[in-house]
């Protein structure tokens, strides 16, 4: 009991840290940033392949019905990353809270509701450049840093309805909002030149809607689908509207199959037509935005079929194209391998899930990045079971 408490305390300590500025990868510098995953730690452990079936993720509103009780989920991630670009190689680490959800079934009904927050696009970065400038004809060493904190958040209100025992449907509305606080600094080697700091704020506002379905054609097999339409994202700089960016339609499908009583395998494919954002991105200085495809596959092995979420082994692989080019050339992409597990305690009303991902992102030969990402999700459930389960 003590040990369990210690684990929980440490986990909570890890979560209750001051909100720090965080940095996504260098592939989040251009465009709207690095797209978020909207996934819980348990989904990330299987490569994201089970996200459409996971009520703790914010992907498929129909999956909310899988939450057995009123549930609160908080996910945090810590990344260690090494980036290489034409300027050199650098290591960075970051911490952020990409996913929060509170929701669950309405007692004595076929309805489940949830409110969630997740990262839609992460644009935290700091770029340092060392060079020379000759403001009065004499070369002087300078250090420039360009940094951005913030990103676009996805606030979602979702409902799931159990049509019958084999079919769940869901609907959600999304509000996309966020701020990029951009700062440019220059420090001169010659201190007779004053160091400078200029800053600006980009803020965003947009809306979207998503619908999803989960269908069980037979025992042990589940199919899921999701479609999401996001509208225009209004961009304002320092409170003045500067343009808008069309956001993509997301179409995703997945299948999960039980192999025996302990093993489940799943695969998922997702397509986003980010090219609709290209004109808006390019007109505001971006390089380009391209459509993306994302594939993932994974498995979950349960040591105890009666407590499937207690100490499972999750493995997954994921390949995804990234929408925003950091430079001219091919489209950036990432591939990741993940593993995860979790425990349930307090009569299965609390859980701790952990996922570790090894990721590699590249665009051509000029830009590459490897990263370890540790994700921890804490979930707590309250209330009694509904009469319909």
């Amino acid at each position, binding site marked *: 009991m003590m040990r369990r408490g210690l684990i929980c305390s440490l986990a909570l300590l890890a979560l209750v840290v001051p909100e720090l500025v965080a940095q996504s990868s260098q592939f989040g510098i*251009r465009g709207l940033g690095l797209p978020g995953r909207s996934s819980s730690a348990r989904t990330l452990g299987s490569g994201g392949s089970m996200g459409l079936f996971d009520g703790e993720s914010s992907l498929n509103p129909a999956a909310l019905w899988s939450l057995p009780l009123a549930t609160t989920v908080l996910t945090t991630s810590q990344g260690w990353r090494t980036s290489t670009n034409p300027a050199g190689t650098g290591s960075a680490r970051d911490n952020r809270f990409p996913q929060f959800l509170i929701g669950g079934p309405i007692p004595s009904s076929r309805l489940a509701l949830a409110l969630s927050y997740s990262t839609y696009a992460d644009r935290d970065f700091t770029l340092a450049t060392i060079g020379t400038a000759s403001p009065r004809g004499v070369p002087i060493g300078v250090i420039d840093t360009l*940094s951005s904190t913030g990103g676009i958040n996805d606030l979602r209100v979702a409902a799931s309805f159990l049509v019958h025992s084999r079919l769940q449907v869901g609907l959600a509305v999304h509000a996309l909002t966020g701020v990029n606080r951009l700062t440019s600094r220059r420090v001169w080697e010659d201190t007779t030149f004053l160091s400078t700091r200029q800053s600006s704020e980009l803020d965003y506002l947009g809306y979207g809607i998503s619908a999803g379905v989960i269908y069980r054609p037979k025992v042990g097999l589940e199919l899921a689908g999701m479609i999401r339409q996001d509208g225009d994202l209004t961009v304002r700089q320092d409170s003045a509207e500067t343009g808008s960016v069309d956001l993509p339609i997301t179409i995703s499908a997945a299948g999960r199959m039980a192999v025996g009583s302990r093993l489940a395998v799943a695969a998922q494919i997702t397509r986003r037509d980010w090219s609709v954002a290209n004109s808006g991105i390019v007109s505001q200085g971006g390089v380009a935005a391209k459509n993306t495809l994302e594939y993932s596959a994974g498995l979950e092995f349960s040591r105890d079929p009666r407590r499937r979420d207690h100490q499972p082994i999750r493995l997954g692989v994921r390949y995804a194209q990234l929408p925003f080019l950091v430079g001219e050339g091919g489209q950036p992409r990432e591939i990741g391998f993940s593993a995860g597990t979790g425990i349930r305690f307090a009569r299965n009303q609390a859980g701790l899930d952990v996922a570790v991902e090894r990721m590699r992102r590249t665009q051509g030969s000029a830009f590459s990045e490897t990263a370890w990402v540790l994700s921890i999700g804490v979930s707590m459930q309250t209330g009694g079971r509904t009469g319909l389960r």
Partner: protein
Amino acid sequence: MRRLLLLVALASAASACTERLTTPGTCPGLCPGGEVAVRDTVIPVTIGSDSSFDGFTGLLEATSMLLSTGPALGESRGVVRFLRRGDSTIVNDTVVALPAVDSVIIQLFLQRRDTTVSGLELELYRLPTDVDTLATIAELDGLMTPATLLRSVTIVDSAKVGPFSLAFSGPDLAGLAFAPEDSTELVIGLRLTAPGSAAARFGTGRSGGQGPVFLSYVTIESADTALRNQFVSRAPSRSFTVRPPSPPLGTGELQLGGFPATRTFLRFTLPDNLRDSVTILRATLELDGIAPLTGLPGDSVRVDVRGLLADFGAKSPVIGNAGSSAFMRVGDTGVSIDIASTVVFWQGETPLPPALRLQIGEEWSSFLVPRFHSTRGAGPAPRLRITYRPQFPFRGF
């Protein structure tokens, strides 16, 4: 499994607070918004708005007495009026009459001299107490006669800076008496002589520890033998330079310092874009001199620049402690002073007037009198070279 989770939780707790964000970048390739742009512009002083004025400070505020002879730097004399010395003193809480003076030391502090000239002699004269700051060189020279000469001392070539102590005793003390009929005051005059042109600076009473001191040594009988040797010191109440006025300013000239001490005001017209939308990196005030600066070899003068809080003309108040300065040395024909810390006050929603007041650091105390071209003459007028950074184009994706 629990151990694993424990380790993971510990690792997460240890790492959650650590962030290192910086990644090397190549701009403009990778940086949204492009490169940091830096531009340079020269803003001339507004035509007709540059003027020199005197009357801000008085002669008694000098920190140096200027002594000179010969045509190179003109003629200058020094006058020191010591504080009154009473006729009694206190010994062991008892007032006793001041007995006869055993000896006297007059201490002067040499701040700088012309080291290229040998044979410098410093002459001390007893002057009447009615000599004041209105005295002229001719009047003083009329009073500095062999009859009033107290001491003539050679300033050896190795003496460059430091105190000079002149001891008087015996019959020499007669000339140093604090005359009761003259309100017990003592005034001495200082004159420098040399085979040719020469000059030196001595400290005044306002120069801190470098002012003249008059020490009277007396013997007072006392039961406490530790108190037998007494001295009574007097600092100067006034010490000043008597020097002809600087040559009048010509058309198209600006002056700093001199006799009387002069200050200069400059006004600029700042373009709108520099007022509100750029970051000033460096602002250099550039002044071109009329002629190479003359003075004691190796001497320098500090030029102070301050912004104005409000522009009321010559009586404009300046910004408190914010300012810039640069040194001019003998032979310099111009000066450049970085004043970005002042120019930034000319920006923003409530800018201060784009105007400057220039003065030398120690007025009335330097042979160096910088003179610059103004907008009223044919020479290059004062100007402000501003290096600035336009607003970074943040909007780029």
